[in-house]
């Protein structure tokens, strides 16, 4: 059954996107415009009822610097799908999936914290793991590990 669903996924998403199977996971790389359409199909047609994860990968030397990565899981088919899209530094924006999956809310907030990816349509992108007023996006490769945030004064300086 697993092979059947993988084959049908390959058939469905072969055309404008780039599809492959890596370590048992179906991987589809597509343009940012087709993110919501693809997720809607995955959820509606193929029964991917769990959005497991939203994150990004930073490749500073690439023209389109960020890969935004989603992981879906189907509890009936027992298959995972990884969806990827590349966005540039000037406008690191993709559509939100909060309309399809409630769980996208917090995960998109985290991704926004860490990489500065803006999820269009998600009105609640307040910091979640970081705090109000934090400057920068710590998981970007150009954010030095030693970098300090001088927003909270040390006690002896008060």
């Amino acid at each position: 059954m697993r092979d059947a669903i993988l084959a049908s996924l390959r058939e469905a998403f072969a055309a404008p996107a780039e599809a492959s199977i890596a370590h048992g996971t179906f991987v589809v790389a597509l343009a940012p415009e087709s993110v919501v359409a693809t997720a809607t199909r995955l959820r509606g047609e193929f029964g991917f009822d769990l959005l497991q994860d939203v994150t990004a990968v930073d490749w500073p030397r690439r023209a389109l610097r960020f890969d935004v990565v989603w992981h879906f899981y189907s509890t009936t088919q027992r298959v995972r799908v990884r969806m990827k899209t590349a966005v540039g530094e000037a406008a690191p924006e993709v559509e939100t999936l909060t309309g399809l999956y409630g769980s996208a809310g917090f995960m998109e907030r985290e991704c926004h914290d860490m990489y500065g990816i803006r999820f269009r349509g998600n009105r609640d992108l307040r910091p979640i793991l970081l705090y109000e007023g934090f400057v920068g996006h710590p998981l970007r490769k150009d954010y030095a590990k030693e970098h300090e945030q001088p927003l909270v004064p040390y006690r002896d300086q008060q």
Partner: protein
Amino acid sequence: MSIELPSPVRAAFDAESEDAVVVNIGPSHPATHGTLQVIAALDGEKVQRVDVHCGYLHRGFEKECESHTWHNLMPYVDRLNYCSALINDFAYCDAVERLMGIEITPRCRYLRTLLSEYSRICDHLTCIAASLMELGAMTAFLYLVMLRDHMYEHLAALTGARVTYTYGRIGGLARDLPDGWLARLDEILVEFYEFTGRIHGLMDRNRIFIDRTRDVGAISSADALHWGFTGPILRSTGAAIDLRKDMPYLAYAELEFDVPVGINGDNYDRYYVRMREMDESIRMIRQLVGKLPQGPICVDDRRCTFPDKALVYREIQSLINHFKLVMDGPQVPAGEVYVGHEAPNGELGFYLVSDGSGTPYKVHVRSPSFVHMGGLHKLLEGYQLADIIPTFGSVNMIGGECDR
């Protein structure tokens, strides 16, 4: 001299906008275990709306991983879910091994499965003990925590540490079982039945406990999936979804076990599902002890396993091999992988990206607690203010993995 510090959070609502009493609970509150801030709009005692904030334990785990070798970050992995650190170790090792194309030895596979289930019991004991104590059941807390402490000491005899073990290795384990470890395991399992039997007697039909937990914090299967709940919370709604059955890893395909489910998805069901899961874990442990094969615990692969120490002192190849593994770390082929293990709280996923060097390009953790915090408001809204405590207890949020 006082200084005006900015608030670290911006609440989604305040008293003016809500026409209600707004109270702030946490992040450090004596009645919750875990640093979590809940801002609640109340109508009398009833919770109308909540705004949940986590992140107070954020330590930059993912950033820190990017400057260590694949091996050296093992102690950090331990500190994600520190109630069941071994499961984190094994999930991480499994992910790296898949990237490297390593198949672990049979003894290692069985030992990892056994220790995962043993850790699951520790974790569930912690969760149940703490949430019962928060309802005032001090005796139940002491019974369960005493049991857990015996297990911690037992694990310390194997790994050298009580809580954060650093016991997994890429391609194997740190060391084999010491003499008498399995005999002591038998004693502890007997003790387990004695004390959990007392918990069943104290709690299962306890009027106070039922009144506080039955039909409180209830969620349906569809809502639970929508909000990304996995693990005991999802199973308490009646959905038999368990990665150990659905996508078997380690030795789970060879074991007989049931997936306990609840009916209502309320606090009582979450308590009961955890109690029953511990029984199933013991059933698995007994099967694993019977099947445990002899043999090496680490693969014989010079890309990740250290050469024999005697050889390191005697021959140049082994010395260089040792040196390269320490200084450069295991060379992991470029690629990316997502591996999910069924951790006690739900799906613990590792998404690793390698650029082919000895240091990870990216380590991302899909932690069940963090995702659960995103849906926690569904369990809190519409119930009483006092229900926040048992509901939050039954979710078992672990700050280490939630905030990373």
